[in-house]
């Protein structure tokens, strides 16, 4: 399994990368962690004429905090997400969930931005990003623009990212005090994509749920936000009946593709089960 030939470019700045994208046009692809793109090239599914390696752009990497927001460089690798004290303190959902992605070596190369920009419904960060109300900062020849995570994913491998744009940063508000969270991912083994996954972010006022996000991984053409499931819980306590109602509402929007992980029925049922588990785990973490 050998990739086809390509020209290699290693820009040092975002501007340089965008210029290369614009100049080289359709045949150019960005190389982030490479753990999706390189295997596709080795299988000869993809044959870009140019690879633009954005690993040498320092401004794309790192985690910082500004005005109550966490800002994560798109080229921050999964292990940095796991080990970042800022993310651990402000968005612990991400550092917890990233441990469930791939394996230790791949987490040294795989980036949060690559995971998002690829547009693969099997990836975990899309659902996580929607759950934390993240915004993506995209930069193209015309400058920067921001797209809410919920508006970014259109279909399998289809996102709001234009061909001449680079995903630069992921912004998300730090969790308020007492926020509960969980990511439940059912997988066949280490390194696998989710059979079904669910991210929950929850805040409670007393026993009443005052904020809720429920998002799903790999049970549709994109990550899904389970709006009806959220509605079934908002302003209510988390009791067995409400959990069941939310799980059922989440299952109703699932449209998974059958594969070796399971058929539509199983994946839908597992999405519902992951919703239940994530709700309980998130609730237990709410202060």
């Amino acid at each position, binding site marked *: 399994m050998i990739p086809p030939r390509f020209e290699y470019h290693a820009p040092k700045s975002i501007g340089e990368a965008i210029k290369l994208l614009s100049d080289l046009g359709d045949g150019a692809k960005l190389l982030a962690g490479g753990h999706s793109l390189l295997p596709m090239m080795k299988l000869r599914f993809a044959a870009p004429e140019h690879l633009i390696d954005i690993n040498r752009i320092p401004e794309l990497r790192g985690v910082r905090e500004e005005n109550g927001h966490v800002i994560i460089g798109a080229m921050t690798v999964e292990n940095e997400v796991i080990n970042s004290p800022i993310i651990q303190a402000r968005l612990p959902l991400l550092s917890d969930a990233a441990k469930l992605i791939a394996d230790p070596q791949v987490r040294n190369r795989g980036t949060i931005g690559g995971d998002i920009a690829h547009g693969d419904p099997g990836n975990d960060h899309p659902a996580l990003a929607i759950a934390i109300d993240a915004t993506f900062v995209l930069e193209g020849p015309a400058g920067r623009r921001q797209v809410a995570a919920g508006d970014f994913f259109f279909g399998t*491998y289809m996102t709001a990212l234009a061909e001449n744009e680079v995903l630069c940063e992921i912004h998300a508000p730090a969790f308020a005090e007492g926020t509960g969270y969980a990511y439940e991912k059912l997988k066949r083994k280490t390194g696998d994509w989710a059979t079904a996954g669910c991210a929950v972010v929850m805040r409670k006022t007393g026993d009443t749920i005052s904020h809720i996000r429920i998002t799903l991984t790999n049970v549709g053409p994109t990550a899904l936000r389970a709006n009806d499931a959220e509605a079934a819980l908002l302003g209510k306590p988390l009791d067995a009946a409400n959990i069941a109602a939310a799980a059922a509402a989440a299952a109703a929007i699932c449209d998974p593709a059958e594969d070796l992980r399971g058929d539509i029925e199983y994946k839908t049922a597992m999405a519902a089960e992951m919703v239940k588990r994530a709700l309980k785990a998130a609730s237990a973490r709410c202060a």
Partner: protein
Amino acid sequence: MEVKLDKQYPLDVDADRAWALLSDLKATAGCMPGAEILEQLSDTSYKGAVKVKVGPAVAQFGGTVDVIETDAATRTVVLRGKGADKGGSSASMDLTAVIAADPQNPAHCTLNGAAAVIVNGKFAQFGGRMMVQVSEMILAQFVENFRQTALTLPAASQSSGTSVDADSAPVDAAAPEAPAKPTPQVATEINGLAIFWSLVKGWLRGLFGSRG
């Protein structure tokens, strides 16, 4: 690997114009994203090529399209397309397309498409996970291209041609009553047209929604 699709696409095009387009295979093929007819082999057989791009992945097939049946009375076309890439990984599609007039609105019709897509080789083995979703995307984009092209055709009768409400058809860019300059904004491939796709999805949802 086989995927079966059975879809109804409501169109803001009258049935006569839609049928006029559907029965012209070359023109219809032009609506298929990435497809082109290269050569007519016989009255009912054509040589063609398709290029499908999904994210970074590219598939290129060369093959034939045969018109198995054309029935003007029922406005039905049955097609069989078969193709393979250089190494022999293959794809085939049996498609039955029917234009059904809208009894409530003579300016509208429904395109019914039933397709059985069979894919062999590496696309089945490694792309299987995406097959249904990608097939649906391609088909939906085909329908949008079809609709736009059909709207550029001369109206068959006076009764046709009322445009749908702009709110429910946000991509209604081409002027339905302007047959003189047929320059539909058809998408030639499904890659990089994600925004377009999101709009198509919204539009379809709107139409389905309005029809309950």
